């Protein structure tokens, strides 16, 4: 399994598309939107907007890892890599776990870099660092878990890109990552309660500002675990079919 993790990480380092989606684009978005939404603001209002944007775009853009995951699985399938790996002594499940873990590394690094960027450039507060680290880890597991499910279900990379955009952008809009949730219609506010992005965003902002209560942390972690499990279980069910498709 460590061979798979190492190999995937090496591959990812060569992937310029991954660098663009995970770091360059979110940084560009963050800078542009902060400059637009903070003009004319100062003091705590300005900081509140910055915290919301930095955490919101971090959460939104971690979802784009699903494109790279789908691309990697479909490519492995198309070039016969899955079949070839199946002929080695590596248990089938280790291939899946190896891929999953390697993308967890990438996402956690992405979150750390985007948060550090927010801290260095905009001096965002990181008042509850332990809570934040726990949230980072759970968000990582959740996003990559859903990515795993999507990667094994889609049959082409275009399908993967389309679904990722629905999940990432649709989820971002409905969860208040773009527009503050309070000014959204009541119906959308209700929907946001069913989306992991909303819970993660609220908890991130509170932990940054130092107002996150333990009960709220656990509530958020519970939601993130739930979606992680959902992703992993769907992936486990889809995996045999993926292997069958790969083997022709």
């Amino acid at each position, binding site marked *: 399994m*460590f*061979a*798979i993790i*190492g*190999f995937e990480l*090496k*591959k990812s380092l*060569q*992937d310029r598309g991954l660098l663009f989606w995970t770091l360059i684009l979110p940084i560009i978005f963050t800078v542009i939107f902060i400059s637009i939404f903070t003009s004319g603001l100062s003091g705590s209002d300005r900081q509140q907007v910055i915290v919301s944007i930095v955490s919101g775009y971090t959460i939104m853009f971690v979802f784009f890892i699903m494109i790279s995951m789908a691309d990697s699985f479909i490519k492995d399938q198309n*070039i*016969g*890599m899955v*079949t*070839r*790996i*199946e*002929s*080695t*002594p*590596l248990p089938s499940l280790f291939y899946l776990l190896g891929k999953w873990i390697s993308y967890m590394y990438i996402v956690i690094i992405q979150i750390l870099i985007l948060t550090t960027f927010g801290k260095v450039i905009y001096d965002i507060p990181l008042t509850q660092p332990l809570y934040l680290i726990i949230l980072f880890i759970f968000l990582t597991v959740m996003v990559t878990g859903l990515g795993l499910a999507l990667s094994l279900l889609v049959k082409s990379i275009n399908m993967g890109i389309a679904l990722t955009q629905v999940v990432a952008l649709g989820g971002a809009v409905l969860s208040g990552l773009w527009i503050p949730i309070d000014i959204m219609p009541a119906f959308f506010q209700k929907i946001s309660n069913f989306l992991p992005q909303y819970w993660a965003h609220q908890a991130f902002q509170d932990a940054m500002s130092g107002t996150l209560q333990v009960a709220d942390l656990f509530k958020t972690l519970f939601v993130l675990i739930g979606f992680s499990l959902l992703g992993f279980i769907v992936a486990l069910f889809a995996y045999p079919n993926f292997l069958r498709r790969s*083997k*022709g």
Partner: protein
Amino acid sequence: MLSLKNLSKSYKNNVALKNVSLNISEGICFGLIGPNGAGKSTLIKIIASVIQDYSGNVQFTNNKIQIGYVPQEIALEETLSARDNLHFFGRLYGLKGAVLQKRTEEVLSEIGLTERGKEKVKTFSGGMKRRLNIGCAIIHQPRFIIMDEPTVGIDPQSRRYIFNMIEKFKSNGFTIIYASHYMEEIEQLCEEAAFMDHGKVVENGSIEHLLKKHAVPSIYVKGRMCVPDDLSQTCSKGKDGGYLITANNPLAAMERMIHFCNENSGEIERLELVKPKLEDVFFSLTGSQLRD
């Protein structure tokens, strides 16, 4: 020895293999021949443990035998180097540390890529990729190598190089299963072969036996007044205005033609014995209809 007993495999309603039984001796190159959809790749994937949901039995005399599988596709990571790819497969087969390093260098030398080991695979030619594809399957020094169409789309030099590698494997006592559409390759490399069609083994045995049993020898003749009436019935047009005549006893037929020619003041410009080919066996066993 590898013993395959009553192997059957279906994909939904499509029967890919039907009661395939074969014995493959150690230390030989065994050819698998058949048209598209004959079941060769399915059989290979079963032997290589890629497909596990099948009925029947696959048994190696030595239970701990290591298998190296060279897939039809170039299953390599093109954004990484040849060395990275070899390392990866070496680790999957349990090699590590100094042993892995040593084997990587040895394999790079065996496949003729020592100088290009650090370069990304995407910069390689088709032949280099094919050689690396084989290299990744032999990194763990398997005694049993399964090759599925390993020379598709490569230049003659790389093909020759791969043939030399296979000859070397054979001389080291390795067993090779070689599936190919190129019958001249099977004829050149393999001692034994099996013909497959519609998921079944329709014939198998030594190449010599297959040629004797199924390919009728023929004679090429070009000239005037040199084909007796009885032989002209099996006569068909050949190249350069000559004729091809099939005969079970070609030497006797040639002698008769010379006599006939002398008696009738004929003239023989060219008279040759045409060696039977596996391709003749292939068409005689599977027919010449398209299998799209």
